[in-house]
């Protein structure tokens, strides 16, 4: 792994441009904060989590509506002052709350599943300062030669440090 460490997000973006101009494929970029516009630059597709959220929301709303309908109208209809059993306005709060509940949980768990986040997962960190003050561009060393050229491109773009790590992840102790 070749890591280009930048201390400024704009310089890192500049580094990505330079690498792309020289046709060096970028493995991934690790930053302590979200960088806006980086997805377009790296050609990353838009997240589809919104669709998942919508589906889960619809599902949650339907589930609770069905439960309320089954219990209140079908299974044990109660005569409350002769009012209709299927009193829709009373269904609204439950349907609303569960739509939101399922949207939130469905979406977040989809996010965790897709990104492989779960408690106890060993963090695959390439540089420990990537969560602090370093903006790290990672390049697969295998197949990308000469390494010196890559080092030079990164340094020219303003990298404060260039690391050649033998191991992919430093966090596996």
């Amino acid at each position, binding site marked *: 792994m070749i890591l280009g460490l930048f*201390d400024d*997000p*704009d310089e890192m973006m500049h580094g990505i441009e330079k690498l792309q101009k020289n046709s060096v494929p970028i493995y*991934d*970029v*690790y*930053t*302590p*904060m*979200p*960088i*806006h*516009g*980086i*997805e377009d630059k*790296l050609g*990353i597709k838009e*997240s589809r*989590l*919104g669709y998942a*959220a919508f589906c889960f*929301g619809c599902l949650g709303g339907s589930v609770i509506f069905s*439960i*309320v309908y089954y*219990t*209140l109208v079908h*299974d*044990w209809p109660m005569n*409350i002052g002769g009012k209709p059993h299927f009193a829709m306005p009373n*269904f609204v*709060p*439950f349907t*609303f*709350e569960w739509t*939101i*509940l399922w*949207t*939130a*949980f469905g*979406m*977040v768990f989809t*996010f*965790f599943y*897709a*990104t*492989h*986040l*779960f*408690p*106890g*997962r*060993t*963090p695959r960190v390439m540089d*420990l*300062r*990537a*969560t*602090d*003050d370093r903006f790290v561009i990672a390049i697969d060393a295998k197949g990308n030669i000469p390494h010196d050229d890559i080092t030079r491109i990164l340094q020219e773009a303003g990298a404060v440090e260039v690391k050649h790590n033998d191991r992919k992840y430093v*966090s596996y102790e």
Partner: protein
Amino acid sequence: MASHSESIIREPLITGKNITYAQITNDVLFPVENKPNKAWWIGFIAASMGATLWLFAMSWTFWYGVGEWGLNKTVGWAWDITSFVWWVGIGHAGTLISAVLLLFRQNWRNSINRSAEAMTIFAVICAATYIFGHMGRTWLAYWTLPLPNQYGSLWVNWNSALMMDVFAISTYFSVSLVFWYTGLLPDISAIRDRATGLRQKIYSVLSFGWTGSVKTWQRFETVSLILAGISTPLVLSVHTIVSFDFATSLEPGWHTTIFPPYFVAGAIFSGFAMVQTLLLVVRKVLGLENYITMFHIESMNKIILVTGSIVGVAYITEFFIAWYSGSEYEQYTFLNRFIGPYWWAACMMYGCNVLMTQLMWFKSIRTSIPIAWGLSIVVNIGMWFERFVIIVVSLHRDYLPSSWAMFYPTWVDVSIFIGSIGLFFTMFLLFLRVLPSVAIAEVKLLLKSSSEQAKKKLIEEGHLDPEQVAYYKESLTKFDSVELADYDKV
């Protein structure tokens, strides 16, 4: 993008000289990575004594039953529901800051959202303890769920506002928790990557293996935005449904259509007051003056002023409608607030919530830390009395004068309430010790665009309208964390 510079007339969101990304991490993680100071210990000991009192009084209630509370035949709902509504209302500010202000792209939320969300969660926990407390037989709490049972197939009553409350509060709590924890992942990873040994292992498990890669951040931002989008109607629905507990009854003083918006405004009002109470102390004790600046304090005070005034208008509307309704029971209930035996509670309610907040029109009051802190306490007290007046004062004189009664809290009532404040602060102080109290990643986003040093550099470069620069310098005078002498030369 980070390189865009912001208009100079906007006040800085991060003050201080030579703030770097590393320094933000250091400053925020200082209380997490070091031994607590004396102020923390004093607060923690006092708070945990309160929490112990809560535990004792709650256990007492469970052992002897709710008969130990000061309720009587006429006033069947009093102290417990008052404190429940108070705590739920306080929780609302956290969601407002994290969700509504995110949708409105209010960047000043970035440094206060984390602690406000934590406050939401702890406040809702405190509120939930009252729900379980008032059940009497708490071990049967699962009866509120629509479970198949042995009593024929009698289900829960979905027509009841209390059932709606079960769903609203549980959804609100769990969604807030998910929102808060997802936002914490990058910051927990920041602690993890600086820690060693056992600490590192613990934070590693808590961080879910976060790396900060491009795709992770992209999904993270999508999740945050959608969660904010759904939390906004959620937070409005929660206090609306809490107000249904009263508004769907036929009780004079409760049976009004204004309750939902009025409760929501009151909730945001009291919540911001509690955020102010906490943050003014936190910024001082934890040395976060550069991140929670006078701009944040003044903005929150403005929100307190606006929501306090909305509440004031709602009060006036209530009185007008009571008179206009022509219903003598309705009219008596409202008149009784002032001429009845609880006149002092009404004075606390209207005085603290409406009259005292109007002081916030003065800039010198909005930007004075001791006065703002004092007023935030006043609002907290006023909002507690608001619920007391609505609930107890409406109930204590019903249709039959022979059954009129007074409500006197017992030591159990009072201890549970004081104890729940202790419980709240215990949780909050522990939070300050083990998790970052400011969203590190989100504050870092502001460094290049909205910090004082970035703006100072812009001024030094010239090319700016001198009138706007003068306006900006003028706005800096209220900050307690800016050295104005630096601006004499530039």
